[in-house]
């Protein structure tokens, strides 16, 4: 495969991945024999972003915001209802057959649950070697075992354990196996869907360090999806905050964490418990009322308005666009975007 084929129609400065207005609506049906559609769950409802080579984009959001569905869309485990995505200039949703297979080599995924993401009846060697079986052009038959062992070693596992089964490993080690599997085809982008959420605190740090090390060595780009804001900040260059299927705020990590202008982001930041008892009582307390609205029936206008302390009439009538605001240049979807001091020493002055 010549270098020209790999770059396709991509120019030098074009982002590796470009997503535009991606949406996934699931039909809500009723009835067993004759299914009537009674509504749609708008799990992802218009998401756009870019990802550059070697960059980490963190996506934070709470349950039901659609981040997992977004991840599945990007690896084509789901087909979108609308929108498009271009990888190296080629539309990934139009790919079929061999072209799609080729894409798989570049775009891989690490999954959340180390206990169910590995086939319990396959050895670790089989699991990490399966990519080579599916894509034999990447590794000729004789060299596979050696490559699998090299991968195991790379992620910090003992290559001699190649014939062991997943149940013989701990959660953190299984996650490393999942990472080794994702690395096998030398991808350019790895989508990490909550890769450390199911791990113990002391193990999370190990796996996060591993991911960062691999990124530095191999020039990987990550889309890092998580609900833990501290972890996301640590690993991301840019961050997007997701709520009810849309991004409500995006920017470099410093902008989001220090100068958040969207009320939801501010509420999130204020809710994260800080592991320092000294700050008790010094932080701004923003508590949201009520529950997250159902994605089958999102509020009109701004989706966050039902829980927002700033909501005005315009919020119900006009949906705020995700665009740069006066308070700070990073895009924020709020008519009344302004920074707020959440904690001592962070955030600009109010107003």
């Amino acid at each position, binding site marked *: 495969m010549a270098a020209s084929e790999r770059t396709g129609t991509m120019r030098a400065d074009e982002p590796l991945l470009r997503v535009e207005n991606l949406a996934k609506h699931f039909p809500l049906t009723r009835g067993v024999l004759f299914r009537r559609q009674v509504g749609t769950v708008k799990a992802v409802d218009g998401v756009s972003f870019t990802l550059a080579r070697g960059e980490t984009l963190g996506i934070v959001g709470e349950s039901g915001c659609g981040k997992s569905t977004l991840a599945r869309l990007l690896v084509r*485990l789901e087909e979108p209802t609308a929108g498009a995505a271009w990888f190296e200039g080629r539309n990934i949703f139009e790919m079929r057959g061999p072209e799609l297979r080729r894409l*798989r080599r570049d775009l891989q995924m690490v999954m959340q649950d180390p206990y169910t*993401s590995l086939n*319990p009846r396959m050895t670790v060697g089989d699991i990490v070697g*399966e990519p080579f079986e*599916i894509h034999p052009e990447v590794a000729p038959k004789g060299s596979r075992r050696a490559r699998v062992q090299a991968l195991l070693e790379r992620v910090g596992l003992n290559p001699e354990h190649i014939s062991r089964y997943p149940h*013989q490993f701990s959660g953190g080690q299984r996650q490393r196996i*999942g990472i080794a*599997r994702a690395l096998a*085809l030398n991808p350019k982008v790895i989508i990490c869907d909550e890769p450390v959420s199911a791990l113990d605190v002391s193990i999370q740090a190990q796996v996060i360090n591993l991911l960062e090390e691999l990124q530095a060595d191999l020039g990987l780009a990550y889309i890092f999806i998580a609900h833990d804001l501290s972890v996301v900040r640590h690993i991301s260059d840019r961050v997007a905050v997701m709520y009810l299927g849309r991004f409500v705020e995006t920017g470099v990590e410093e902008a989001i964490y220090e100068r958040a202008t969207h009320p939801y982001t501010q509420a999130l930041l204020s809710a994260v418990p800080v592991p320092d008892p000294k700050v008790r009582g010094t932080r701004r307390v923003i508590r949201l009322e009520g529950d997250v609205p159902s994605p089958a029936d999102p509020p009109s206008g701004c989706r966050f308005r039902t829980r927002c302390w700033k909501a005005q009439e315009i919020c119900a009538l006009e949906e705020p666009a995700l665009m740069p605001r006066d308070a700070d240049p990073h895009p924020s979807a709020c008519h009344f975007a302004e920074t707020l001091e959440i904690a001592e020493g962070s955030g600009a002055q109010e107003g």
Partner: protein
Amino acid sequence: MSSTGAGLPVADDMLVAEAPRSLSRDAWDELKRRPIFWLAAALVVLMVLMAAFPGLFSAVDARTAPCSLADSLRPPGPGHPFGFDKQGCDIYSRVIYGARSSVLVGVFSTLITGIVALVIGMLAGYFGGWVDAVLARGIDIVLGIPPLLGAIVVAKALSGQDLGIWPVVLALGLLGWPTAARVIRSSVIAARHQEYVSAARVLGAGHLRIMLRHILPNAMAPLVVVLTILLGQFIAYEATLSFLGVGPRNVISWGVDIAEAQRWIREASYPLLFPAGFLTATVLAFIMLGDVVRDAFDPRLK
């Protein structure tokens, strides 16, 4: 062993004992300690040996041994532990040689059932949608046919020709699969949603690879259990068919012997007792085996 920044585990060649063990290991350990398992397994092995190598058990070949009416209904005695039947044939050798018919019918019918159930259940469970809708209705339809009745009809239709055990085998095999197919279908549906299946898709695995490599091994356990129990049932069916006179022709069979013996039950009980006893023991052995294996594999009972 030191640690790098990436956190190489210190004692990395130590097995993590507290990680959950595999279901098969656990199941095997549990099976090992249950006497029922060993009893049933021993019986099964015995019957299979009997079917395969009847010569090991009986010096007399019941297929060729002469039967003398002078021996009619002679009670058990030296050299003939089970006595003689009405025709004067040695019951012991007939019982031993009768095993073949029953066990072979059981095994082959189960094989056919297993294959058909596997294919249909896998396709229905994996693809879902209209494929599943169509196949599931198919399963329901066949399920509606009483297997014994259906087998009788087929067997009778083909009984004119001397096809040995095959009409019965086919009849049972083609009618017994719906239950097994349903079992497979549910395990496939459950396995289909596992994250490791999604992971395989992300790697670019096609349908066939996913079905064979990822779903099948994880759906096999319940199938094996169902088939083992089914095997026992098929053996009982075969005996019933033979009893009714529509079973395999010109083959020594427990069912045939039972049918014959029950006419003379008031004169002697042993011509009935022994074939019936062996039949019951065999059917029970398979069913018990299936039961105990299913319990061992059921994670909820732990």
